[in-house]
């Protein structure tokens, strides 16, 4: 009898343990934060802008409902002396618990990045168990983070996704932008004598228009988000924006480029042949000669011909060799631009210091403290490029060659 009583008691207490309702989070009580923007207020505090998913409306719009829709996201904002305070303060205006596990995008306002740098922001994200440091970090180019986060976007209903996917595809196809995760940025900021690059994003158009649902009801929205430039950070502070060739060259040396298009001049016409790269590998090595560091960058590219705007007879292998040579020159010029720009900024975003550290650890100790300001700007950089044309699409001679021959 006594045994049974004890057993009963045990089962009763077990039910208490097994309810698993300690700090439960119901889905309907969560506000899923898709993106967050961080700016600086005038009095020097952090201003947090949270892009929260409106679950009902994400599905609703795809169905093509009427004019009474509400947007797929809702924006809340709050300020605080640090990020945790701001996030907790925001709960005053949101009916749900803020849930950061799906925050894939964090946007830092340009002003904040320039004046204070992102170093002070990192710890709060790195420490929090809910927030993942694989999230992408973006610096708002020529706008505040708030404006960027507030913008509604067509096609991809959730603006955070639009930003991430844009970065991903442009990195793959064009290579002037780069997708940087918080973890990568942290790692390169921590590395001795190294600057870092962060992707830039920009709001093109009127910020007021961008927040309205009307914006989406035009075929050519008045305000759109656009990947724009690469931010150069020195000791966490924004010092320069890279665009165009210097941006692509930087991505190239970092070996992050996946595919792009190189134009070469041919037969007196500028940018006449388009060379589409398929795969490339860049390696950086370091020597120390007479107490001076010396860097060599070697890159190897394979690709196809995508477009010829002049009649070229590529059935002749010698022509191909000539094309390859001009491609090499073109790429080398681009990489050189990137190196020179980085040296001008006195910021080792290319990770050359790291290479010296890895291969010549003892000599690097001497350079370490003055790497960015003394050694890096004067660095001898030797660039070698190997470029190969492998295929040329479905045709051999150009359409223009056909025209030329028949008109003779």
């Amino acid at each position, binding site marked *: 009898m006594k045994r049974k009583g004890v057993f009963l008691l045990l089962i009763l207490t077990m039910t208490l*343990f097994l309810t698993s309702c300690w700090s439960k989070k119901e889905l309907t009580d969560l506000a899923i934060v898709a993106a967050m923007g961080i700016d600086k207020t005038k009095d020097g505090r952090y201003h947090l802008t949270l892009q929260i998913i409106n679950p009902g409306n994400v599905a609703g719009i795809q169905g093509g409902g009427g004019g009474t829709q509400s947007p797929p996201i809702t924006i809340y904002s709050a300020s605080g002396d640090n990020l945790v305070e701001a996030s907790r303060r925001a709960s005053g205006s949101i009916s749900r618990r803020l849930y950061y*596990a799906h925050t894939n995008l964090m946007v830092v306002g340009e002003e904040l990045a320039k004046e204070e740098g992102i170093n002070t922001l990192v710890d709060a994200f*790195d420490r929090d168990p809910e927030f*993942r440091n694989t999230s992408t970090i973006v610096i708002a180019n020529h706008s505040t983070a708030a404006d960027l986060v507030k913008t509604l976007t067509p096609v991809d209903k959730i603006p955070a996704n639009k930003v991430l996917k844009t970065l991903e595809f442009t990195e793959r196809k064009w290579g002037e932008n780069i997708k940087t995760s918080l973890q990568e940025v942290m*790692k390169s900021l*921590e590395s001795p004598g190294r600057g870092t690059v962060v992707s830039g994003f920009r709001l093109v158009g009127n910020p007021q228009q961008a927040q309205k649902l009307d914006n989406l009801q035009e075929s050519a929205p008045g305000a759109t988000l656009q990947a724009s430039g690469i931010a150069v950070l020195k000791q966490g502070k924004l010092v320069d924006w890279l665009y165009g060739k210097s941006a692509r060259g930087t991505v190239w040396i970092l070996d992050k480029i996946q595919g792009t298009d190189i134009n070469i001049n041919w037969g007196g016409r500028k940018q006449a042949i388009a060379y589409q790269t398929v795969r490339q590998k860049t390696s950086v090595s370091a020597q120390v000669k007479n107490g001076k560091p010396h860097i060599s960058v070697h890159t190897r590219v394979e690709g196809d011909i995508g477009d010829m705007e002049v009649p070229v007879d590529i059935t002749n292998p010698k022509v191909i060799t000539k094309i390859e040579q001009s491609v090499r020159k073109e790429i080398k010029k681009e990489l050189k631009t990137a190196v020179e720009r980085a040296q001008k900024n006195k910021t080792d975003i290319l990770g050359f210091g790291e290479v010296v550290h*890895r*291969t010549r650890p003892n000599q690097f100790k001497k350079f370490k403290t003055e790497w960015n300001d003394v050694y890096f700007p004067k660095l001898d950089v030797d660039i070698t490029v190997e470029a190969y044309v492998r295929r040329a699409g479905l045709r051999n001679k150009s359409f223009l060659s056909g025209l030329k021959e028949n008109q003779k």
Partner: protein
Amino acid sequence: MEKAKISASQLFILMVLFELGSALLVPLAIDAKQDAWLAILLGMVFSFVLLLVYHKLYTYYPNLLPTEYMQRILGKVLGTVLAFVYILYFMYDASRVLRDFGEMLLTFAYPDTPLFIANALLMLVIIYTIRKGIEVISRSGELLFIFMYVLAVAGFILIVSSGLIHFKNLQPILEEGLSPVLKVVFTQTLYFPFTEVIVFTMILPYLDNPKKAKVTMLCATGLSGINLIITMLINVCVLGVDLTARSQYPLLSTIESIQVANFLERLDVFFMLALIITIFFKICVLFYAAVVGTASLFKIKSPSRLSYPLGLIILFLSITIASNLQEHNHEGLKVAMFVIHIPLLGIIPPFLLLVAFFKDRKKHGKNTFN
């Protein structure tokens, strides 16, 4: 001592799970920076020497628990005191591991739950297992060992296939020379986790085939050492040295970095499962050693009855040994290492062996004279 027998393969599995235990959790040997793997490797190699010492002691007294043969070697009073010290050490170590478990769970997944509840739930299961005896522990070990390795291999494949491994993070090798690595070896990796297996001397008398003891011990330490080396290599390759050193649980951060094909990500549960399995066995073995040791020291007929009181002591100890995680880690790496691990694992056993050796020779010497 209960009447039970375990096979060599079961001992092997228990030892591997034991040594992985909380060592998988922490940034092991990270004071050696990118050479952490080397420090673990050397720690493993040097630990073989101490393992052979433990084994030699066992061959002198194959049917006795260490708590018993300490009395034979050092005499009744001194031996009893020393045996009691070892029992306290096993319990303290068990409570440290339990605390590690609770802190990991609370930091990462259950921030609002009190530590006591998390620890108590695991402890309840462990008390139940201990009551069932060593055979049940080792059989459940066999079952979960397979599960654990499936998880480990799957995790490994995912990490490799998401392209996170950057071997250049391991360079430069031996940047500051060999001395910092050796320092880490002799103040950390040699003792934690490798020679912590001294607790298995309490279990060796249950082995059905004593001849296999040596090979099993060395192989188990070798396998777990290799696993720890791979884990630390991956951590450093994925996260880099600085981030690994700053992480409370680097393996968790590594697994969180997995992103395969945009949908295989956030596999933290892999980490949790592996950790709960290994920690469960680590506490089980330490706790079991404390239980049988106490029973033999105080001549208690059925050791399993001790599991409730000792279990509660471990549970409360795990809450009270430190007031926060930082204090707990500091105690483990800086205080307990020198006050407890080095004397109890590194100094006393060879000393015991020396005394046992001379006693043995004396005995044999007499025999030849007569």
